[in-house]
């Protein structure tokens, strides 16, 4: 049993015990462990049925047809397959891609790879509240724009983008639209048809499913082409070769089914905890909320504590599992590129914490976190010289 309060659910979540239960049914000698592609015998067909049920569950969460779902190892692979696969397939149509500076590295690094292959990428900057305005997209589109890639929910600051508005704009202009929904799927309503999403990257482990499994929803009508990245057995309609990990896929399906049925109560409860956390921390002087105040996913809070150095702040709260503003570049110690893109100075970006709540977070934990952070901030400010010293 951990004695640390886990407030890093944006990084990953514990697997829901209900999900663990169905995963275990696919692992042992008496379970559905067979290769789902081996449909020539009953165990294989049982495993295949499990996979197809999970495919239905994943598709249902995002309003897709099950035939649109391609299982991958996670959102990073799904993002790469979407961006690289579509750009390479349609490169005759255009060589321009639009994305944002605040996207996840899985998108940004895939776009940099496209640049190495001769594509041109425009990296737009969101507003200081992290929100992307559709007009900004419209201004960035060119005749040769092939693809727009926008994340649904930002992983560091939790702001929610109006993907439907951007999707409809892209659809009108004949531009492919990719959405990285790793942080938003299962927490907020999402519909690939309503929101005109051609490529939707998903993952299981952000919503109490297992790590190592994700999916890419690919538009079917009209059929969208992709150049696969993995070659082999031709699984997943040839788009993602490799033996299907039944237990992982079943875990993702269960996690998405639970997320869909509990989205509303979970969202209300977790959003309430986030407001309780922010209310407690905001009593400290010199505290800033990062990102739009209301267009937020329920579980993510990013806060800057002026006058406190980020690493020392983390050091002072060993009982909390949280990340600092430099967490996404922990090895380099560089301030968060997301906070910098919003206009925060290096100093303020380094003086920031991301606190993220999940299904198993409690009010008691939130109150303990408020107390621990308040003590740490007060103590470090007492050690620091006055500003301007």
């Amino acid at each position: 049993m951990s004695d640390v309060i886990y407030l890093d659910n944006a990084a990953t979540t514990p697997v829901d015990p209900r999900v663990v239960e169905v995963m275990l049914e696919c692992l042992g000698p008496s379970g559905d462990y067979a290769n789902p592609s081996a449909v020539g015998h009953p165990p294989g067909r049982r495993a295949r049925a499990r996979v197809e049920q999970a495919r239905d569950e994943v598709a249902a969460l995002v309003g897709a047809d099950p035939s649109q779902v391609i299982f991958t190892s996670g959102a990073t692979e799904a993002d790469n397959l979407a961006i690289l696969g579509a750009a390479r397939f349609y490169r005759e149509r255009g060589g321009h891609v639009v994305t944002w500076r605040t996207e996840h590295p899985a998108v940004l690094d895939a776009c940099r790879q496209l640049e190495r292959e001769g594509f041109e990428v425009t990296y737009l900057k969101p507003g200081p509240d992290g929100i992307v305005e559709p007009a900004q997209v419209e201004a960035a589109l060119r005749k040769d724009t092939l693809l727009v890639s926008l994340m649904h929910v930002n992983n560091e600051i939790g702001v929610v983008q109006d993907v439907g508005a951007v999707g409809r704009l892209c659809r009108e202009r004949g531009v492919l639209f990719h959405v990285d929904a790793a942080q938003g799927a299962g927490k907020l309503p999402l519909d690939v048809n309503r929101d005109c999403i051609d490529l939707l990257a998903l993952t299981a482990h952000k919503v109490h499913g297992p790590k190592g499994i994700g999916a890419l929803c690919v538009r079917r009508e009209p059929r969208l082409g992709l150049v696969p990245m993995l070659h082999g057995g031709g699984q997943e309609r040839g788009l993602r070769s490799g033996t299907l990990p039944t237990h992982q896929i079943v875990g993702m399906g269960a996690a998405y089914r639970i997320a869909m049925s509990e989205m509303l109560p979970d969202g209300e409860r977790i959003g309430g905890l986030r407001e309780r956390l922010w209310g407690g921390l905001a009593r400290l002087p010199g505290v800033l909320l990062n990102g739009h105040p209301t267009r937020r996913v329920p579980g993510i809070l990013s806060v800057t504590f002026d006058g406190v150095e980020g690493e020392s702040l983390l050091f002072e709260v060993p009982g909390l599992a949280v990340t600092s503003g430099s967490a996404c570049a922990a090895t380099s110690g560089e301030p968060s590129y997301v906070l910098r893109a919003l206009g925060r100075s290096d100093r303020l970006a380094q003086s920031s914490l991301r606190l993220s709540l999940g299904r198993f977070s409690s009010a008691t934990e939130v109150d303990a976190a408020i107390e621990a952070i308040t003590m740490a901030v007060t103590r470090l400010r007492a050690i620091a010289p006055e500003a301007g010293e």
Partner: protein
Amino acid sequence: MTVDDPRYGVEVRRRMATPSGVGELPPAADVAVGRAGDREQGAAVVLWCRVADGRVSEACFRAFGCPHLVAAASWLTERLAGATREDLLAWDWREAAEALQVPPAKFGRLLTLQDAARAAAGNWPGGGSSTV
């Protein structure tokens, strides 16, 4: 069960838990102040030294920075009692790095502390600032 963070040695953890030497001295003719660093760069230190008979009689600090820097500043103020201006000028950050097991990635932060020590020597009561 919590696991100790291997980035921080025992002495850094101890000094962060109970940092000795935190404080400041009011401006006075017998007080040398050394400032270095910049919060914008992630490290800022102010050292105060009261001087009597050519030697430090009392020292304290304030620091903004990582745990290694705060611990090193605390460690240094304990060692400054009895130091001469020349001692401050000669003090080298490597002493603190060795004593506190500071990883190479943080050596630059300790240079800020060395700069503060030299700035204090430059403001030594009775003159001498032109030599720094």
